Structures are given as C-alpha cells and as structure tokens.
C-alpha cells in the first residue's frame, strides 16, 4: 500500500462535506452532501465544479523548433498534431505496438509549446513515455504547482465570464491564457463547460468565488462518472486499456485522415499495422451502448450473452440520472453491435434482456 496523496484543496473538500475515497493514488471527494443524483442533475441544469487536480498536467517545451516536437509527438499517437492551430486543443491517444491504448489525453497548441493533460492513473507512465520518446526534441515538464478544475453545465459560461471576462467568446476546444489561469472550453460531462488550470496558491480563493455563485455546486467523482457515462465517453482502465484499439473503442473519429492509409502522414505510430487494418476492414469487436430493460443497474464486469453464447462483458455501467434508467457500455462482436440488437446480461444468476443502442445516452451540448 502506497500512501495516498492529498489534493491541494483537500481541506476545502472536507469542509464542504466531501466524502473522501481513494482514487488513482489520491484522496478524492466521491460526493458532497447533496449526493450523486442531485450533483449529476445540477450539473446538467446549472453548473457543477469538479476538482480534477489529480490529473497530470504536462508542458512539452521544444528544445529546438516546434516542428520537431510536433513530429515527435505525432509518432506517439495516431492523431494529427501538426495541423492543430495555436489556441486549440485536441483529443489524443497513446498507443502501444499491439495497437492497444496506453492512455487517452488532451493536448493543446499554446504557440511556443504543447500543453498535455493525462489521466491520473497513467501519469507516471505517460511522463516516462514522453521523456523517452521526446528526449531529443522537447523538455517534458510536469506541472506540479497548479490545480485543475472543471466547471461544467449550461450556466458555466455565464458564471465563469463573470470572474474571467472574455471566456464566453471561446468555442469548444479553444484554449487561452487569462492572467494566471489556463482555460480550455472542454470537459468530461457532455455539457458545455471549461477546464481551468489555476496556480495552487490562487486555487482556494478562485473556487470559493465560484461556489459563492447560486448556479454552482461542488461535484464529486460519483457524478463525474455518471455524467461521462451518459455522454458516452470512455474511462481509461474500464472502457479503454492496453489490449483495446481505438477503432474497437469507437474512437476512429480521433484518427484524422492524414494519419490513415493514403494520408500524407500515413501510419508512423505504435500499432499502426493493426489500427490501419481495423480502419480498413472494421474491427472484430466494438464498444457499444446498452439499455437494460427494467430498472436494475448493470455494472462493470456483467457478462453478456447472445443465443446462450458468451458475447462480451460490460465495461462501464450504472444508473443514468438524466436518462432515468440504467445504462452501460460494453464490447461486443461486430456482428452484434448494431443498435437494436437484443442480447442478454447475467445479473445475480438471471439472464435479463438488454438492447444495443446508440450513444451518447444523453445529448451533448458543446458550444461549437
């Protein structure tokens, strides 16, 4: 057992009534007194504030020119880094030689450097990977003196613009520097919103200013999970892992044409053989959405069957507060992945009907 790390705002979470639980090596608030259901619905109705300071913030600063850094970073991912304009952010995936996913991440072009945000549980691995892959072209600088917050929901724009005039003009996946705040218009809930990197020393006052507004409630990891599940977004370690390819995961949209067969910078990333083949021929299995019949939630690990044959396993599942019903994601053979396909899930010894469905389960409302 390693000791759990504490967030810079730990005492504030405790003072707000946060129930602290271990997550990815950190003590994290899983919920506040409002509870997961109310926190989830509040985020969809107004604005929710999440402390995601456990995530890894990393600056990649070129040793020479940006082009060499960009080329080096592209060699780690099946993603178009080169065309990303200054002031914009993009979703990326580190892949391994087998075409599996080592982590999913966000990266931003900030003019003279790249800013990367990775999952907490993969942070050490990712930093080592980048240090090894980019040793000659960039300094990999973990950012260890800043909190990362997410403000999500339909009121997020109005709320944040009161404190940080100008953010309302940002579009989805824009990034900008506002004083000592690094802000992107993005998130992990399916809602419009912002992710805000703030120096540790300024974080508590900033959070208290946000929480002082009627629209804003603090939101824990529990609702973060149900919100992202309804939005159809993958959680690394559950819906994505080292054996699952981005194509199987339904993330082919993140692989731009320029990196695909026939593109100007085709391949050249770990696992290209498998990933390009799956793009051309279709993957053997696919991530799908599932709607269980009835009200019983079906959670990660629940076995799925079709005609009495094992067909797959639920990778994430639970109750969708905005959907008002249980929802889940799973990997199924391609032949069973069409929306409307009827399968069964084994719950407490019983086989119960489940239907493959489109995702997201709840419509997204990004401001494009």
């Amino acid at each position, binding site marked *: 057992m390693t000791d759990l790390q504490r967030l810079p705002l730990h005492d504030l979470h405790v003072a707000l009534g946060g129930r602290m639980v271990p997550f990815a090596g950190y003590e994290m608030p*899983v*919920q506040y007194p409002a*509870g*997961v*259901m*109310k926190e*989830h619905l509040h985020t969809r109705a107004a604005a929710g504030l999440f402390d995601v300071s456990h995530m890894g913030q990393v600056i990649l600063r070129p040793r020479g020119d940006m082009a060499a850094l960009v080329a080096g970073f592209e060699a780690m991912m099946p993603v178009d880094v080169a065309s990303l304009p200054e002031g914009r952010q993009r979703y990326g995936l580190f892949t391994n030689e087998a075409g599996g996913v080592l982590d999913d991440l966000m990266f931003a072009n900030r003019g003279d450097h790249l800013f990367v945000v990775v999952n907490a549980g993969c942070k050490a691995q990712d930093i080592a990977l980048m240090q090894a892959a980019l040793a000659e072209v960039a300094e990999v600088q973990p950012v260890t003196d800043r909190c990362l917050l997410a403000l999500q929901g339909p009121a997020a724009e109005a709320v944040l613009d009161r404190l940080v005039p100008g953010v309302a003009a940002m579009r989805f996946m824009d990034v900008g520097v506002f004083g000592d705040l690094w802000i992107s218009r993005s998130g992990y809930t399916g809602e419009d919103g912002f992710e805000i990197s703030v120096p540790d020393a300024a974080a508590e006052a900033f959070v208290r200013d946000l929480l002082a507004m009627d629209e804003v409630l603090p939101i824990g990891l*529990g609702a973060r999970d*149900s919100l992202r599940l309804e939005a159809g977004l993958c959680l690394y370690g559950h819906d994505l892992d080292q054996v699952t390819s981005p194509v199987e995961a339904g993330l082919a949209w993140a692989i731009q044409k320029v990196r695909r067969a026939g593109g100007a910078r085709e391949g050249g990333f770990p696992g290209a053989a498998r990933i390009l083949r799956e793009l051309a021929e279709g993957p053997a299995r696919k991530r799908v959405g599932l709607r269980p019949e009835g*009200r*019983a*939630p079906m*959670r990660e690990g629940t076995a799925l069957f079709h005609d009495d044959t094992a067909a797959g396993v639920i990778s994430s599942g*639970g*109750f969708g*507060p905005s959907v008002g019903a*249980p929802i889940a994601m799973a990997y199924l053979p391609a032949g069973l992945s069409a929306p409307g396909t009827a399968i069964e899930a084994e719950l*407490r010894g019983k086989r119960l009907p489940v239907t493959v469905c489109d995702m997201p389960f709840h419509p997204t409302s990004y401001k494009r």
Partner: protein
Amino acid sequence: MKYTKEHEWLRVEGDLVVVGITEHAATALGDVVFVELPETGTMVTEGDEIVVIESVKAASDILAPVDGEIVAVNATLSDNPALVNEDPLGAGWFFKMKLDDLAVLDQFMDEDEYTALIG
C-alpha cells in the same frame, strides 16, 4: 424498535415484524435507484439475501434478520426506490415477516445501543 448490526430496523406491528434500513445505512448507500423484493409467501432463513438494493454507487443485499415467512413487501419501492432515502424509517420499509416467536427479537439492539454502534 430493534436494530441489527447490518443496519436494519425491525418494528413489531401486531404479530408481524416490519423491516427496513436505518437512516445511517440509507445515507451511506447513497441515492437508491433499484430495489428487488422477495415474493410474498417465501420462507426465509436468517442470513438469506432477500432484498437487492442498488444505489448510484453500488449494489448491496439486505439479509433476512431472523427465520420466518415474508407476508408482505413494499411494492411501491419498485417504482419509487428513492423512498428508501427520503423516508427510510417510514414509507421506505422493505417487507413484513411472520415469525414463530417474536421473542427472538430480544437479541437485537435497542435504539441506544444502535446509536452507540454508529457513533
């Protein structure tokens, strides 16, 4: 009212025992989104898993506190599982049992003892 170590409450109602979970347990579980109840007429043995509760966070079982027969269940919970959080000691009851001898309830904690348990 009597209490079990599994945070159930037991209330005698005529010759029956009504069973639910305590406010402490309901708060710890979080928002309840699904309750699966036993069928009436089921004979149960102490320790049998007879109710499944799913909260937004996790699944839990409610165990039969004593031997007996399930004579009624709170079917309202199937459509409105949130009652377990809203009124755990009242409208959020789970089932009623018929026992051979109500004296078996003497083994359980009274309110003071339960309050001490949950600190």
